[in-house]
């Protein structure tokens, strides 16, 4: 199982993530998004925080989760690389996320992701024990 793959879109970029549980799915979607932003190999764990978000269903929760992480990226200027989902229900997610404050001498940043959109967003169990998520980002 791949953690995630990129979808072509004329103006923007899409992402498909996979997981054996919803927790793994949401963590892989976040990892996929940050892989679009920068090179994650050299990101240490000097920064950690807890994130809680609410949504009206799993799709809303996914979009809101990813947008919350984009907010952290810009407001706290951190590159995030580890996502530990602590609690996940249909309307609520709590996670510990960690990474490192951006150091332009050390970290390669590829692009800014402006936002995660609701366009064609999907969270589905494609077979028992295998979950698939799809989102498009505004670049």
């Amino acid at each position, binding site marked *: 199982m791949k953690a995630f793959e990129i979808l072509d879109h004329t*103006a923007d970029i899409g992402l498909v993530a996979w997981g054996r549980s919803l927790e793994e799915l949401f963590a892989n979607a976040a990892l996929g998004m940050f892989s679009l932003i920068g090179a994650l190999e050299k990101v240490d764990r000097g920064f950690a925080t807890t994130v809680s978000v609410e949504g009206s269903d799993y799709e809303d929760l996914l979009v809101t989760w990813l947008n919350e992480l984009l907010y952290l990226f*810009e407001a706290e200027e951190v590159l995030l690389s580890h996502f530990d989902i602590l609690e996940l229900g249909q309307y609520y997610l709590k996670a510990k996320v960690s990474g490192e404050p951006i150091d332009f001498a050390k970290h390669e940043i*590829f*692009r800014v992701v402006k936002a995660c959109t609701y*366009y064609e967003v999907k969270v589905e169990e494609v077979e028992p024990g295998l979950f698939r998520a799809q989102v498009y980002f*505004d670049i």
Partner: protein
Amino acid sequence: MPEWSGPLQKIDDWRFRIPKDYKPGMRVEGIIYASEKMIRAIRKDQAPEQVANVAFLPGIVGKSLAMPDIHWGYGFPIGGVAATALDADGVISPGGVGFDINCGVRVIKTNLTKDEVLPRLEKLLSVLFQNIPSGVGSEGKLSFSPAELCKVMTQGAQYVISRGFGWPEDKDHIEEGGAMEGADPDAVSDKAIERGKDQLGTLGSGNHFLEIEVVERIFRPDVAEVFGLFEGQVIIMVHTGSRGFGHQICTDYLQKMQNAMNRYGIKVPDRQLACAPLSSPEGRGYFAAMVSAANFAWANRQLITHWVRESFEEVFGKSARSLGMEVLYDVAHNIAKIEEHEVDGKRIKVCVHRKGATRAFAAGHPAVPERFRSVGQPVLIPGDMGTGSYILVGTELAMQETFGSTCHGAGRVMSRSEADRTSRGRDIAAELERKGILVMAESKATLREEIPEAYKDVGEVVEVVERAGISKKVAYARPLGVIKG
């Protein structure tokens, strides 16, 4: 990606219709402005489906429109225009504006000619590059207190002009005077302020740029004269928006409207089209926050204008005034506006969403600055970094057909990964230099994603709006130097 196979009926050489009965739930028909050749490319992705989806918006009047630079977006297509009637409980949709609220273009004129600028172009670019923060994570040179940021939200460009960043008359040549009415800082989240506060006075990255251009062709000398443009003249084009501040406002309200839609019984075929009646608390809140971001963007382009002038002063050793560095105009191409238009023979108030489309008001309209009122509003159309830009003028037909709107740029035809594959191993900066265009960029990756082949030919786009009559060509300008984030 499958081709879009829905119905596109040819009305004439420049207009194609998606009939209202294409999908049950469409309240109006869709119209795409394009040439036959462009339609073949437009069918390659899902942009026409998005034109049809926009036609579902409650209160939509006229038609769901798409300009010839239409391309696949999310929710609205890029290049989409839709108006909703205020008195029919029309909605406002954050997706109809986009994340980069008041992404737009400003042109600053000079009285310098190409021959005067070319010998100092490299120096000029490096001074501009130094003076104007650009690229991912760039921070502004100024720090604004929360109270000052509130003034930026309510007074936009006019506030930073009052602080010394510009000339008093600059405001007369900005859409809405650079300070649109209806802003409310209380409608803006702390997160948006936190995300945006260090980004005021920065160019950003992606498709945003600052270009030094030379006016190479004048199509309508009488209008060009009113605009103050002449052949051989050097002008500066700035393309940027409200940065992270606007992105967060759109994000915040999209989520609020997901929940509100159920409450108002609104159903749309794409969740990114989330919307709420303009008269509802969510609709009013979004409008007030969106205007705050629009004003932030006008303040942003104003600050950059100030540093452009300072850079020219440094390089040419003359005052910006003696270099004739007036603002020609400043347009928003991602915005929603309350305007009065004639619909089915009646003048009504509508909320015009322009998502990758430019206002193009005709001569005589009171919103057109006095200096241009006899000819119409200047419309600024950036091309991609290799091909140049157009300056157009609004027309009466645009008032009748498109709620006074026209195209906004070239429009992408190639995905970023395709552009990356196509440009692998190429030195894009060197290729452009061979074409006589000097480029300075924070990121080589950005340059490759933004290669000229990734875009439609802006010349073809402009040809369609000219032939269709929804704006007229005034001048074409070719880039000499480009700064990219």
